[in-house]
């Protein structure tokens, strides 16, 4: 047993008072969870401390909360590890080790607080989930037996089916902080569960819906917060990126030109080996290798709109090498290096594999399995 101190952000709506902090001492094995600490506090000290919880095993998704500022599940965060993180953060902030500091526990972000750690998930999380038409839309009569589908397609969407709707990703989402109307990581991961499902007959309509909504798939800023927060390895951002890729494949216009911007990197590197920044803007907004440009009105508008950013970049020193803006000046890779770059492209195209935990396991595990299989052959 060890002693820990938890510092809980409390809010008692009937008290007429605003939120406040309260510290509690708990006595737990380090391997027990932050939720165990809260339950011990409820049981022994203060039964009015409100926290949703049920399974204690990271399957019901009730106990989403922020622990030392990080969104996750209370039941899945060991108290010993939470203490280490709290101490590490404190010493990083002050530059010195100052012993044990309290473990800070707060309600989830991006949601109104009802009481203590209980948030209003209905008005945010669930409203957004319902926004993505979260049910299968097959066409015609169901077959007499099961739908026959590629085995891997079911494993593929099992990663997003593994979502337990805990809201940790929503809590951590930086885009939603800036745009509360963003459909968000959980709902978009749920959307992929249908878009990736070969039984769904309205995949294209779904993609249009999610791409054309200004708060849809292109509202994600690719910050990885949701991947860090997700307790079930759903990797919501990966699912959003897959939605974008599928939207791109369907030729759906990306209002931010994000897809074209991404493809600009791909094309330039394939051709030149390193990033030729003089081509980046035009390639992003008016794809087509130099000389064959047919920029649309929108592309011209976007390119002109980017000029102030470029000027700011030069002024602040972010863009240091002016010649890089002059087409043709960009250096070539020495010797046969460009061939090697293209070999990498070929390899990637030939091994067009999705990274999916249900198919592959974690990265290290994947390498190990492959090594074992090679040894067995």
């Amino acid at each position, binding site marked *: 047993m060890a002693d820990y101190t938890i510092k809980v952000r409390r809010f*008692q709506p*009937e008290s007429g008072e605003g939120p406040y902090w309260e510290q509690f001492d708990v006595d737990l094995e380090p391997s027990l969870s932050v939720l165990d600490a809260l339950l011990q506090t*409820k*049981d022994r000290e*203060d*039964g*009015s401390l409100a*926290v*949703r*919880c*049920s*399974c*204690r*095993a*990271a*399957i*019901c*998704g*009730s106990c989403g909360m922020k622990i030392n500022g990080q969104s996750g599940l209370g039941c899945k965060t*060991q108290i010993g590890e939470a203490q280490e993180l709290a101490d590490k953060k404190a010493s990083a902030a002050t530059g010195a080790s100052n012993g044990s500091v309290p473990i800070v526990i707060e309600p989830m972000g991006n949601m109104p607080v*009802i009481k203590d750690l*209980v948030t209003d*998930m*209905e008005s945010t999380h669930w409203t957004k*989930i*319902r*926004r*993505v*038409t*979260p*049910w*299968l839309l*097959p066409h015609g009569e*169901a*077959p007499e*037996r*099961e739908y026959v*589908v*590629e*085995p891997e397609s079911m*494993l593929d*969407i*099992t990663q997003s*089916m*593994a*979502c*337990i709707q805990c809201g940790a990703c929503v809590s951590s989402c930086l885009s939603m902080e800036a745009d509360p109307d963003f459909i968000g990581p959980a709902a978009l991961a749920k959307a992929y*569960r*249908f878009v990736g*499902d070969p*039984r769904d007959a309205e995949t294209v309509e779904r993609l249009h*819906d999610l791409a054309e909504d200004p708060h849809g798939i292109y509202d994600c800023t690719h910050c990885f917060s949701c991947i860090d927060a997700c307790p079930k390895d759903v990797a919501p951002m990966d699912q959003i990126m897959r939605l974008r890729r599928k939207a791109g494949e369907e030729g759906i216009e990306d209002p931010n030109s994000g897809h074209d911007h991404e493809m600009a990197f791909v094309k330039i590197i394939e051709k030149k080996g390193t990033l030729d920044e003089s081509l980046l803007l035009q390639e992003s907004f008016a794809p087509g290798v130099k000389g064959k440009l047919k920029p649309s009105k929108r592309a011209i508008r976007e390119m002109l709109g980017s000029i102030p950013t470029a000027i700011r970049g030069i002024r602040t020193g972010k863009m240091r090498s002016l010649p890089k803006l002059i087409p043709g000046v960009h250096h070539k890779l020495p010797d046969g290096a460009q061939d090697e770059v293209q070999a990498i492209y070929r390899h990637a195209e030939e091994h067009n594999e999705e990274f999916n*935990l*249900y198919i592959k*396991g974690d990265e290290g*595990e994947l390498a*190990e*399995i492959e090594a*074992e*299989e090679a040894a067995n052959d």
Partner: protein
Amino acid sequence: MVGERGDPASRIPTAKSDFGSIASALVPTHDVLVIGAGLAGQRAALAAAEEGVSVGIISKVHPVRSHSNAAQGGINAALNPGDSWESHAFDTIKGSDYLGDQDAIEIMTREAPEEILHLEHLGVTFHRNEEGKLGTRAFGGASAARTYYVADITGQAIMHVLYEQLMKYSEQIARYEEWFCTALAMDENNECCGVVTRNVADGSMELFQAKSVILACGGNGQVWKPTTNALICTGDGIAMAYRVGAKLMDMEMIQYHPTTLAGKGFLITEGARGEGAHLLNAKGERFMERYAPNKMELASRDVVSRAEQTEIDEGRGFPDGTVALDITVVPKKRVHEALREIVLVGRDFAGVDITREPIHIKPGNHYTMGGVKTDVDGRTDIPGLYSAGETACVSVHGGNRLGANSLLDTLIFGRRSGADAAARAKRIAGSRPSRKVLEDEEAMIADVNSRAKGSGRRVSEIKLELGQTMDAKVAVFRDEAGIKEAIEIVARLKEEAKTAYIDDHGSVFNQDLLGAIELGYMLDNAECTCLAALERKESRGAQYRTDFPERNDDEWLKHIDLEKTDDGPEISYSEVTITQWEPEARTY
């Protein structure tokens, strides 16, 4: 392509009530009211809505938090060409130690394939074989690989897909998410006509009116500590039915699952053994050779749990009171594909990489085979009151439930209850509940609130003593002395609960108050389980009496029924339905 919008609460249909003191009060009214929103409840609601009646579904937690989530391994159905419902039925009957009712088991196993296909058509992402068709895995007590699954999140996957359907049919099915039920409402003919609820969000009390009420509130695992069950599994439905006079059946039959983590009680799916994992004692022996030489680790759960407990009790376990589950013998690729959840449970809750080393496990409280006595359409012996899933006892599980039959039970009898409840609603005019039941419940809550701090014991203390008592005395092995001790302790705890105090006296999200009400439910469940365990003087399925170690078909091939009287539960018996499988000796 537009999802559901708007506030579900604004769609609550109401009817004017002219009963009671508040003549103009609006009573939320549905033809069919489902209490509990796990698999049984959601399936019942969808089936009732299909019949065109108005449906409400009430749950004390958000539906996707329900404990059906925790069913990892899969769902049984004889759907493969080489398999047959008779084989599935026989395995279930043998697994039940012949206490299951064979008419009900026939229905469940015959209807299983169609239900699996229905789920598949709704969108459940079942595992596929190489041909892209539904694939199966092996499970305990089964003579064929007939378990359909989604990795090891089968319950979660099915429940989230059913919830998708609830969202889709939100016009027909009103959802009351985070509403807690405190009592059933009865009319003057002793028919069930509604339920008293508390809106958890604001503490307001409401009397709901319905022509049919379906209890699908899950089991009572929290009566034991530790348990694999969630904190919400407090036997609410069983207790509410018992309190209005419905019969309970086979309450002594409590399953201990063979593979739970020591201390925390977390579940390691039987799918692990289905994939080939071994059980080892501290000497490294595969001890199941001595207990079930044919089925080994895949014998019925009661058999495996007793084998483990015997190894532990006789000193061949590890010092922490466990034996080991060795999953390293399963190919790693298969583990990642089919047992990913267990990799996470091992890593996060035991600090063990199950792909590299064995994990320590022990038998732990897991499932309530008994419950509210129903027929094959979910009808209890109170008109208008139905029950399905773990709350109910049809009985398809008898003395011991087979792995991957619980999800099936919830779906088959959830659907049948929903359909029959809807048929009743179409048939009858319905009666209005008296507001007295609401006033009684408000008085009960006022009483709990009035107890001063320190005036009695803390609710949490009583729960802990109850759980430890039941795990010590009414578990894998039982005897008269131990059960009698448990009965005395439970009786004392019931008295203490009357003065137990809480800290929170507010209206908004008062979990403290709900905990006190749940304690009452748990104590009623415990009392009934102890009495039935004392009554059954034989060993059958999960009930193993060290003082009566043999199964005794001559005297005890019968159900034990319990009914509430002013002096406590009254015991009676009912026949086990036998169709074509006469009881035989049970070996694996």
